[in-house]
């Protein structure tokens, strides 16, 4: 089977400071993957590089055989933090912007997800709470029809009850042939829903495994296993 995402010898520095070192990764279509690692380890940077938002890296990032940023962008939907929009922008206008920029954006799907998440589209961006803004980002990201979805800490400001509902929704909104990579440092909330996990440590990828293999071989929860990896050297 060919890889949906292939990363070869990826290294990344900002102002001479090493952020990511020699990353190699292969991801297939049709998976739900957790991207785990402690804060500041480079999860967001890695996602930004895959999404072609961050540039000037060393190595190769290929999505479905494509290497050019403009081609890759049509295949990846990344949870943008909406920093480019003025605070007074109406949510309806953000939706219009998305549907103009991305031909694969479905306004119908956006309305469905936004309604499910109780996002009121007549509001301004500035009137949204942190959690509400995160819901909007989830709705925007998932309303595109792409092969790869990247969600960066999508639930950090969302209360536990709603998280469960949204995670359940993820299963219905995403096409079965698409892959979702969700970064999170609260693994317990997503460990049942993902089938693979990528663990980052020491500027690189420590492990990429099937979650059921961890349960099977270690007899541990994913969160427990993950914490052990970090405790080893403390």
């Amino acid at each position, binding site marked *: 089977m060919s890889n949906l995402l292939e990363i070869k010898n990826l290294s990344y520095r900002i102002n001479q400071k090493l952020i990511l070192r020699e990353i190699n990764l292969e991801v297939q279509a049709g998976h739900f993957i957790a991207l785990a690692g402690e804060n500041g380890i480079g999860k967001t940077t890695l996602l930004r590089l895959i999404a072609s938002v961050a540039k000037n890296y060393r190595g190769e990032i290929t999505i479905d055989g494509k290497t050019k940023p403009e081609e890759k962008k049509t295949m990846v939907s990344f949870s943008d933090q909406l920093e480019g929009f003025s605070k007074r922008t109406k949510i309806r206008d953000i939706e219009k912007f998305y549907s103009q920029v991305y031909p694969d954006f479905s306004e119908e799907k956006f309305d469905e997800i936004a309604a499910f998440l109780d996002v009121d589209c007549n509001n301004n961006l500035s009137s949204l709470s942190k959690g509400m803004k995160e819901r909007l980002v989830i709705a925007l990201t998932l309303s595109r029809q792409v092969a790869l979805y990247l969600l960066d800490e999508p639930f950090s400001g969302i209360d536990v009850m709603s998280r469960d509902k949204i995670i359940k929704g993820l*299963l219905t909104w995403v096409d*079965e042939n698409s892959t979702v990579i969700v970064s999170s440092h609260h693994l317990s909330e997503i460990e049942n829903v993902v089938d693979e996990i990528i663990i980052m440590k020491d500027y690189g990828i420590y492990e990429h495994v099937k979650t059921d293999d961890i*349960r099977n071989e270690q007899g541990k*929860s994913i969160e427990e296993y993950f914490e052990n990896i970090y405790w080893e050297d403390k």
Partner: protein
Amino acid sequence: MKFKDNIPIFIQIKDIINSRIISGQYKMGQKVSSVRDFSIEFEVNMNTMQRALTELIAEGVLVTKRGLGNFITEDIEIIDNLEGSRINSVIEEMYNDLTEMGLSDQEVIYHIQNFMKEKRDE
């Protein structure tokens, strides 16, 4: 859906489906949900769900009819075996837990009988 966190989820799903067959919630020959509907019901992703169903099909518990979906087997022997092995695995888990606590076989039997007696008297 709450799962035990140290056992592969696809195995736990198999156990749930097997239990539904044993308890009669699923009838012989009955059609079951699609992979997608099951994955939403159990709140797991489709690969995990597919793995559980693939094993149930390989074990003969489910039968695939091309283009129609998955059905509970009509082979009574398979269902009888299912019940036998389910009983065994439940007892095994309990037995292992109790012997790990240091109980002898006689003590295990004593406590089970006691438990059942109290249960009857309730």
